């Protein structure tokens, strides 16, 4: 399957997706750990996609979002940002508000 289509399917099927290094139970990078911990703190069920297991996915997601770094957070099909943006939104209470608006909390 085309990688872009595969990514689109994952994003469509899961309300909250985190493309990350490692898995939610054992992230393998400080930035992936940070975002994963924020989602856990907010008690959000999310789908973690380990890009270290799939080189095509690793390149594909960067092109899909036009964003050069991992992790990448998607909520209801929308690209929210990487670690810096998610952290900033969390600290300002904006992430919680967004999740509430989307009926995910």
């Amino acid at each position, binding site marked *: 399957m085309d990688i872009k289509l595969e990514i689109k399917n994952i994003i469509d099927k899961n309300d909250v997706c985190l493309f990350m290094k490692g898995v939610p139970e054992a992230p393998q990078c400080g930035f992936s750990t940070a975002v994963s911990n924020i989602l856990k703190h907010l008690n959000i069920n999310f789908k973690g996609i380990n890009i270290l297991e799939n080189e095509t996915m690793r390149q594909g997601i*960067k092109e899909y979002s036009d*964003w*050069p*770094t*991992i992790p990448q957070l998607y909520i209801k099909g929308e690209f929210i*940002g990487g670690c*810096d*943006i998610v952290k*900033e*939104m969390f600290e300002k209470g904006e992430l919680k508000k967004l999740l509430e608006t989307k009926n995910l909390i």
Partner: protein
Amino acid sequence: MALSIEEIKKLITSSIPDATIEIKDLMGDSNHYSAKISSKIFNGKSKIEQHKIVYKSLQGKMGNELHALSITTEGK
């Protein structure tokens, strides 16, 4: 190859001339940086757009030579 603070500043300034940039080498290893950047160019843009402008100025080095650069952006 790691990038120095000066090289990062030069890259950002070349595409965002009015940028005020503050960079810290977080671990002293020339590999983990944080950058605070403000510019008029960010005014009215979303955080994603602002960060994309910074990533573009780094000419593909982000995620390659530059492993860790934490970015904070604001308008002027």
